[in-house]
């Protein structure tokens, strides 16, 4: 219960906190929704009338193609991260405790390094005159250098490289929680390794998987600098389209509509994550 003496401080704190979030989170997001319903104006970026033209443009087969392509690339990235990250997280959780701290530290170090610079470093490796080709040519394994840069593959490699830790950390977290007892209980009840995996491990790690997917899939659609550096301004992500609409083509309603598509995708994934937690009986945290 708040006494009179408490009021000033508490009031100040709440005002600050609410003020900041309402002004810099709620309002901008509402503006984006609003902007997506306005019309493009060459002079002032936005003008009335209100309409749904921007959304109609989203369904233009051309842009639909771009979105699907971007989604495919993001999905591929996510799947690769999952295939690499799942065994990785499991193996990590099995390591001795003291070693684990060190290994996690080593995992996070690249993550804390500037992402632009890391993307650029990949260019040094993938270029036609780059290190991988030099090595392969030197070893005589190939005659002609491989054209790896400026391809869809290069973009995916870049995205995986930047986003892998985001998949591993939540997975590691659920594997840590996975009690050895549960596995033993499953064995005692006569289940073999594969059924144990399918019926015990997978459902229990599912929230971690979904968290990882959320943390990888969405950025994988928005990190526009990766196609810029590694993709040769082709193989565009939704993020590139949005950036282009805002900073080049100046079609703000369309850019806003595209960004709302991303937000809706996020909402869907969040819902899936919640449902999976409920499925395994974990309570929602307030």
């Amino acid at each position: 219960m708040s006494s009179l003496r408490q009021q000033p401080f508490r009031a100040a704190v709440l005002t600050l906190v609410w003020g900041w979030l309402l002004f810099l989170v709620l309002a901008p997001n509402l503006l984006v929704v609003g902007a997506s319903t306005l019309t493009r104006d060459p002079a002032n970026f936005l003008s009335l009338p209100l309409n749904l033209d921007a959304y109609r443009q989203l369904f233009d087969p051309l842009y639909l193609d771009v979105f699907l392509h971007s989604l495919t690339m993001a999905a591929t990235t996510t799947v690769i991260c999952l295939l690499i990250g799942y065994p990785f997280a499991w193996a990590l959780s099995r390591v001795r405790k003291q070693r684990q701290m060190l290994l996690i530290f080593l995992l996070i170090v690249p993550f804390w390094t500037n992402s632009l610079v890391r993307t650029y470093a990949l260019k040094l490796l993938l270029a036609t005159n780059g290190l991988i080709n030099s090595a392969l040519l030197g070893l005589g394994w190939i005659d002609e250098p491989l054209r790896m840069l400026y391809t869809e593959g290069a973009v995916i490699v870049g995205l995986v490289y930047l986003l892998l830790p985001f998949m591993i950390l939540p997975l590691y977290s659920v594997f840590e929680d996975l009690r050895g007892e549960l596995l033993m209980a499953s064995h005692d009840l006569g289940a073999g390794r594969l059924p144990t995996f399918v019926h015990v491990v997978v459902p229990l790690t599912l929230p971690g998987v979904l968290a990882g997917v959320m943390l990888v899939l969405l950025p994988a659609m928005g990190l526009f600098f990766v196609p810029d550096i590694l993709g040769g301004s082709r193989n565009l992500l939704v993020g590139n389209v949005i950036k282009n609409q805002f900073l080049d083509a100046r079609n703000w309603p369309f850019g806003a509509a595209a960004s709302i598509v991303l937000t809706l995708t996020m909402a869907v994934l969040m819902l899936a994550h919640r449902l999976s937690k409920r499925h395994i009986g974990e309570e929602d945290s307030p």
Partner: protein
Amino acid sequence: MRWLPRAWLGLIYLLLYVPIAVLVVFSFNDSKSGYTWGGLSLRWYESLFRNNAMVEAMWNSLWLALSAATVSTLIGALTALALHRYRFRGKRLLNGMLFVVMMSPEIVLAISLLALFLLVGLQLGYVSLLLAHVTFCLPFVVITVMARLSGFDDRLPEAARDLGASDFTMTRTVLIPVIMPALLAGWLLGFTLSLDDVVVSTFVSGPTYEILPLRIYSMVRVGLKPEVNALGTLLLVFSLVMLSLSQWITTRSKS
């Protein structure tokens, strides 16, 4: 088959570090062309520091990161304390907004803030960058502090209040010391996030306040300058120091 998990770990770590190692090694490469080895040299580091615009961008970025981390730690800590201690309406909305900021793809955040700034007529420069950076750092600070608070015995602040301390005094003398490690960890995280940010900064920055990531971006796009390797190595070392500091603080606090 026992070695399989270890081998997988080793392989992935190797793949994670190869590009970084290449970067570091090539930052000492004497050759101009970037891909051929020309001997050891510090020339790119020298050239980096002779470039006034680059040095200015470095200072600007550091200052921005410092201020963004500090402000976001302040607001974030207060937010976490409010959520933990006070009862008020709309807690779910507050949590929701924080969650939205944290999970939203950066580009969505970027354009929403750009739209806001344009609407209110805010000049794009240091202030717009600061507001944006504090906003995206906020949820991370809140989470870090809340994690610390959740493991904390509530009876102490209650006792302090029973003894007559005002809310503010109690917060200052009891709670702050307790959450200090979380504050420091959150500060460091905010600092790093701010320093690294490209997506949001692309949209809300103006030419009056040049920051490092955007400079790097144009350098990388032109693609010819080996100084990028030197810059990258410096940033790597810097991150290593920051991260080690953060780890040290968290392990110390656990005692």
